[in-house]
């Protein structure tokens, strides 16, 4: 068993037309035993940027707090909100700091650039030591990532409106986590548009 499979969990993010969506399951396990069904893996960084992390749960929690620290310092000093691409690089450098004793998480960043930069959709993912992947379509991570890759490749198409994007990302996640023993027990989907963020909780196979 690998350390990345101890707690289980998966995250996926997709780009739509002037919107992005990010979704994750809610399971927290200890190998085969399910310990919690309300473990959120996606956190708001700013109003327009969300960060999802799959992998070892203690690192998910710790990194969430470390990024809050660094983003607060950034915001106070720069007197403006951080941009998604800048935040992705912050994630990358934070992980690389621990190159030889890494945090066991795979992060996914989803957001919109600031209004002055056109509210452009942005997604990115990284590996455990911070190698960034700037995809134009979708990014996946977690124990169900092989399944997520396959389904997303089949269902995703460019320029989906927020409601369509919600359906696409939900179907991708729900069917992928059904095929994975370590992910599941409900899901959360955030759709980020320039006006607002819509958060929906999904109930699927609770096993």
């Amino acid at each position: 068993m690998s350390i990345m499979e101890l707690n289980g969990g998966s995250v996926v993010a997709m780009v739509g037309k002037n919107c992005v969506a990010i979704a994750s399951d809610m399971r927290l396990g200890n190998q085969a035993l399910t310990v919690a069904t309300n473990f959120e893996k996606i956190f708001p960084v700013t109003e327009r940027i969300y960060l999802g992390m799959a992998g070892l749960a203690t690192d998910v929690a710790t990194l969430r707090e470390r990024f809050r620290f660094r983003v607060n310092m950034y915001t106070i000093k720069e007197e403006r909100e951080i941009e998604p691409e800048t935040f992705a690089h912050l994630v990358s450098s934070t992980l690389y700091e621990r190159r030889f004793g890494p945090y066991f998480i795979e992060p996914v960043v989803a957001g919109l650039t600031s209004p002055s930069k056109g509210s452009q959709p942005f997604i990115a993912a990284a590996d455990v030591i911070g190698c960034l992947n700037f995809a134009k379509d979708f990014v996946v991570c977690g124990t169900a990532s092989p399944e997520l890759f396959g389904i997303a490749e089949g269902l995703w198409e460019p320029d989906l409106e927020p409601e369509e994007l919600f359906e696409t990302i939900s179907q991708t996640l729900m069917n992928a986590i059904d095929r994975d023993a370590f992910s599941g027990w409900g899901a959360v989907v955030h759709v980020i548009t320039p006006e607002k963020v819509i958060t929906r909780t999904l109930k699927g196979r609770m096993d």
Partner: protein
Amino acid sequence: MARRYDSRTTIFSPEGRLYQIEYAMEAISHAGTVLGILAKDGVVLAAEKRVTGKLLDLSGAKEGGYGGSGEKIFLLNSNVIGGVAGLTADANSLVNYARTAAQRHLFSYNEDIPVEQLAQRLCDMKQGYTQYGGLRPFGVSLLYAGYDVHHQFQLYHSDPSGNYSGWKATCIGANNGTAQSLLKQEYKDEITVAEAVGLAVRVMGKTMDSTTLGSEKLEFAVLTLDANTKQPHAKIYKPAEVDALLSEQGLAKKEEDTEMKTA
């Protein structure tokens, strides 16, 4: 006579004084005034800017996310605003330290740092510079205006010696004696934020070097509690908002050239 005991901050004089600390406070007495007033529903900070002039590039300050802070008044954390008087470079270093200390507390305890603890962190550091290392003390006095759930609204003052105390109203920098006596006369215990704002502006008007008040010379900030979320809300006024406030109080000034002075 004092000369022999000046060179090292870590040495007492025969009269039992630490001259370096006193010289640091002397530097602060030449800096722009900062005053703070504690109200029952908030805290008010007002400061006189000394670095002014036509050639100063303030374009960033106009649209800045937290409003024209930069020379005297700084956001330290979502629940604390700091006002500085003294050597600007030393002040920037201390503000950075305070911001990091507040985030470290948030990281460890997942809650906003209590205002007094933030003052203590800075004071512990400042005291270190008076006892070991052979380095000079920070030539900065700070006012901390903050809110926490434990003691609600608070106002603290710390100086280069590393000492701090809590105040209902106080003043640091140039003319602080005058301002302090004015505050003593006019301060009342159950003052509201609106009344405190008016009092702050009036006292600044009487103690500042320039004869009329304007946004190039005045920095202003207020910390209150948001009625809905019950969270502290820090507002550092943008230059346009300072001018609007002064008009409201009937103390607006006309356009005129100002000379640049060092803080």
